[in-house]
């Protein structure tokens, strides 16, 4: 188990290093450290890497390092029988390095290092179990991320081409388009609609990977970029972002109510929370979104770890229809799972409550319109409903197939859970007491808020009961298929596009590439030209008159030229 200890210790070392740096640099009192390294001045734009160490980057990198340290300990338990464990730790280390580079270097070039690195290494981590379904998940993950990369490359090109040299006439349009590119890039990474299909598919990765990558680091990279570059977003982009994040929250919430694979339910809950963060950014509440980002990272990682324990101890069974009664079998795990679910729901005074309360306050007090408020409350109701559904399915002993014999919880597993435990339950209190930026005042009347929420939950409960009592089978199965496949998005994004495109390319190759270009021009045209020339030259050489003419002509030409 020593590679596991080495990996975890290195992460914790860097965590404490960052903490020390932060305290020394006076970061928590508003100071910042900026280092710039210039690469080239030959182009008219400055090609430089810029390191920024202020409270945002410090806090984020500290939480990333802490979570990855706990995940390393957890993977010492989860992947203990795996042959390529050292390779796994190397990949995790590279992933953490890319994330820290992304957080610390917010200039666009440094950003691309971290951004591309995240996408590519998450591909390697998702295809870690070398099977065909993990390959398909990996390909859709990395291709969705690549679309975001391309948007960022176009944003960089726009920055280097029309935002300097004083092209005044174009700066308005370019600024607007730049905001669109940035927003689209962040949306692909954070899996907003229409790029949401990859996140549930990426659950083919091992659970430690999901707990680090798909809960706290990869999907929050897009949110972080938008927080840093929020000055580029104009009214139109904020509007589009709010719509898209709202749709994502609805999609994730409704799909999680029907999903039977437990890891996918947790992934969809991540998706809805990231949608909530994006919604907060679209309202302009960047600091609140960042607070929710950090708090969510901790309790979601804990939730994934508990889920990983349940999956491991039930013999790699991820389907909730086979599980049950975990409350009696893994008491510590189910306790922490309960607490993290309460955080997710925003149950009063747990960790998630503080940040969610602030977002709700921002949503209600800024001008968003009646429809947005109603839909927002619907998302909150969805969160509560799927959380309770998951708790019910996992912990209550009601299934026929539930496995009866579990073993004692492993030492590594317990220690990783203990390390994360405080993080998930009291993170927000600690952060609010350290940083004065996180404690804002929100004008929400709790009696109104909770009563409306309860009303909506009751409404949904009745709706669900109505669905269950409906006798029309086709309608029920259509609704189930619609919700299970994420409003048909996962089918459209993956299978449909890739198969149609590849078939189109293959027929293009057969007809144009092999047909016209190679066979026609390559063989026929060239052969016919050379044949024609050859025959003509033969004819000419066989004729005495032709030879003399040819000799005279060439002598004449040479004399003319020289």
């Amino acid at each position, binding site marked *: 188990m020593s590679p596991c200890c080495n990996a975890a210790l290195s992460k914790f070392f860097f965590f404490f290093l960052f903490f020390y740096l932060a305290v020394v640099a006076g970061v928590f009192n508003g100071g910042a450290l900026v280092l710039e390294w210039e690469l080239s001045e030959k182009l008219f734009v400055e090609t430089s890497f810029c390191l920024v160490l202020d409270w945002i980057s410090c806090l984020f990198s500290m939480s990333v390092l802490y979570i990855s340290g706990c995940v390393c300990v957890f993977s010492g338990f989860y992947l203990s029988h795996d042959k390529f464990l050292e390779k796994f730790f190397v990949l995790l280390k590279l992933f953490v390095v890319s994330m820290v580079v992304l957080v610390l270097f917010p200039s666009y070039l440094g950003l691309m*290092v971290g951004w591309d690195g995240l996408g590519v290494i998450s591909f390697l981590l998702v295809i870690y179990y070398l099977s065909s379904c993990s390959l398909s998940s990996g390909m859709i993950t990395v291709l969705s991320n*690549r679309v975001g990369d391309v948007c960022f490359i176009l944003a960089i090109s726009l920055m280097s081409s029309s935002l300097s040299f004083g092209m005044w006439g174009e700066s308005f349009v370019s600024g607007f388009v730049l905001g669109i590119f940035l927003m689209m890039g962040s949306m692909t990474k954070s899996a907003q609609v229409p790029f949401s299909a990859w996140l549930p598919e990426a659950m083919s990765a091992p659970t430690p990977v999901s707990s680090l990558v798909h809960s706290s680091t990869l999907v929050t990279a897009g949110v972080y970029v938008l927080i840093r570059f929020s000055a580029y977003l104009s009214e139109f982009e904020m509007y589009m972002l709010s719509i898209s994040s709202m749709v994502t929250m609805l999609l994730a919430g409704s799909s999680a109510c029907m999903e039977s694979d437990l890891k996918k339910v947790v992934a969809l809950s991540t998706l809805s929370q990231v949608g909530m963060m994006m919604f907060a950014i679209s309202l302009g509440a960047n600091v609140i979104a960042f607070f929710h980002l950090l708090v969510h990272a901790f309790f979601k990682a804990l939730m994934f770890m508990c889920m990983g324990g349940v999956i491991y101890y039930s013999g790699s069974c991820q389907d909730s229809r086979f599980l049950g009664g975990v409350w009696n079998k893994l008491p510590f795990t189910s306790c922490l799972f309960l607490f993290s679910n309460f955080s997710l729901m925003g149950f009063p005074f747990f960790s998630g409550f503080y940040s969610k309360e602030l977002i709700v306050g921002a949503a209600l007090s800024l001008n968003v319109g009646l429809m947005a408020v109603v839909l927002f409350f619907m998302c909150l109701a969805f969160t509560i409903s799927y959380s309770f559904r998951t708790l019910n399915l996992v912990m209550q002993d009601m299934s026929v197939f539930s496995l009866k014999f579990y073993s004692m919880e492993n030492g590594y597993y317990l220690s990783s859970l203990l390390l994360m435990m405080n993080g998930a339950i009291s993170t927000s209190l600690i952060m609010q007491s350290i940083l004065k930026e996180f404690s804002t005042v929100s004008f929400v009347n709790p009696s109104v808020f909770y009563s409306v929420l309860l009303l909506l939950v009751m409404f949904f409960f009745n709706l669900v009961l109505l669905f269950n009592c409906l006798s029309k089978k086709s309608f029920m199965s259509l609704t189930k298929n619609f919700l299970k496949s994420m409003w048909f998005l996962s089918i459209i994004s993956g299978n449909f596009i890739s198969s149609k495109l590849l078939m189109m390319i293959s027929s293009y190759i057969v007809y144009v590439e092999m047909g016209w270009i190679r066979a026609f021009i390559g063989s026929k045209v060239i052969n016919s030209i050379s044949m024609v020339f050859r025959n003509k030259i033969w004819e000419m050489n066989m004729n005495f008159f032709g030879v003399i003419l040819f000799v005279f002509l060439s002598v004449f030409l040479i004399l003319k030229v020289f």
Partner: protein
Amino acid sequence: MSCVLMLSVSCILWGLGMNEVGWLIMVCAVALLVVMMDCPFNFYILKSEWLGVDEMSVLMVLLCLLVSMMSLVSSTKEVKNGFVVLMSGWSVVEMVMFICLGSVLFFSVCSWMDFFFFFEFSLVPTFFLILKWGYQPERLQAAVFMLLYTVGSSLPLLMSLVYFWSYVKSDNMLLSKMVGGWKDFNMNWPWLIMSLSFLVKLPVYGAHAWLPKAHVEAPLSGSMLLAGVLLKFGGYGLIRLMWFSEVTNSTIVLFVLVFSLWGGVLSSGVCSCQSDLKSLIAYSSIGHMALSLSVLLSFYSVGKMACVCVLYSHGICSPILFSLAANSYEFCQSRSIMLSKGISRIFPVISGVWFFFCILNMGFPPSLNFFSEVYSVGGLLSLQWLLGLMGGLMCLMTGAYCLILYSLVNHGVVSSMVFKPGLNLSYRYLVSSVFGGVLLLGGTLCLDMFFV
């Protein structure tokens, strides 16, 4: 110039009976250092009556030397420990050194007639290389295609250079430019005819049929030199031609730009469906060269810099991908993607190197490929937003096929063709890969040298 002298002396000594290939590689490395010693900035110097030095030509000479070194190191079949395999009295080493010498001279000469001579000269050793050391009977047609396409399209260039020589009364590049060679002409159509040869060599999409054939049939050193050096002849020639032919941004130039850019997108799309590893990498070469050509034709200074950067970074990355493909040929005797699969479990280091070069090919920051790609798309976007969008589409498809390439070779269950007893892979592939990787990643630290 002294590097040329060193190379010629070492070739002569080789001919006289020296048998150590490692010695030749050392000579190349020292020649590299010697070349680095004079790097003029932004102006063209005539070193002698025969040779002229510009920063771009220094870069290209460096590329030649590096690629020849890597190709000598990686040809494990033909250059074994202590002896070389001979075919009709010649060995691969001599052919590689001929191509290297010819290319170094091509990038250094300063008169147009010598330029054309060395342009065609390096085709002869390549032709011989493909014919003698290739593996399949189709290599006859492939070699003939290559010759027909490149020589046939360079005949107009010869005619126009001869006419130019008689018009300006000198064929020195610098002198003819300073005298103002073509100023009285409308250079649109003549430019197209003259650059046809470079476009076919580059290769632009419509005239690219020779390249995948040649790559599939050539041995490893031939492929490495073809991809690394010979394709760059076209780019170099186009830059020199644009410099002296006073061509302006007109409809014809835009036509070639759009044609090559869209051809690049098509060729990158075609890559995702290839069944032969070498053919896949060949089509990726076409895509990269198309990107460099289109940003060069935008007539921005960023365009020329990005073009040279793409030429250089592709010239290092592509030969290494070819050597990795030859590596997989060695242990399963087939280049088909159906048969060489799943090496991630049994060769983890080679699998890591495959991954590294696949993502370098797609432009992974902070390597040189990333900068070349970003500034190419930037140059195109400055010209017209739709061209930038096409460039972005090409980046997307490049990413797709690079990862498809990686997952085809490395993912999944080990194919049954790979299990052979007594499997010994040469570590020479790893050495040349590490060398190239260090160059590409470390090139970021001296970007000023590559942004010519």
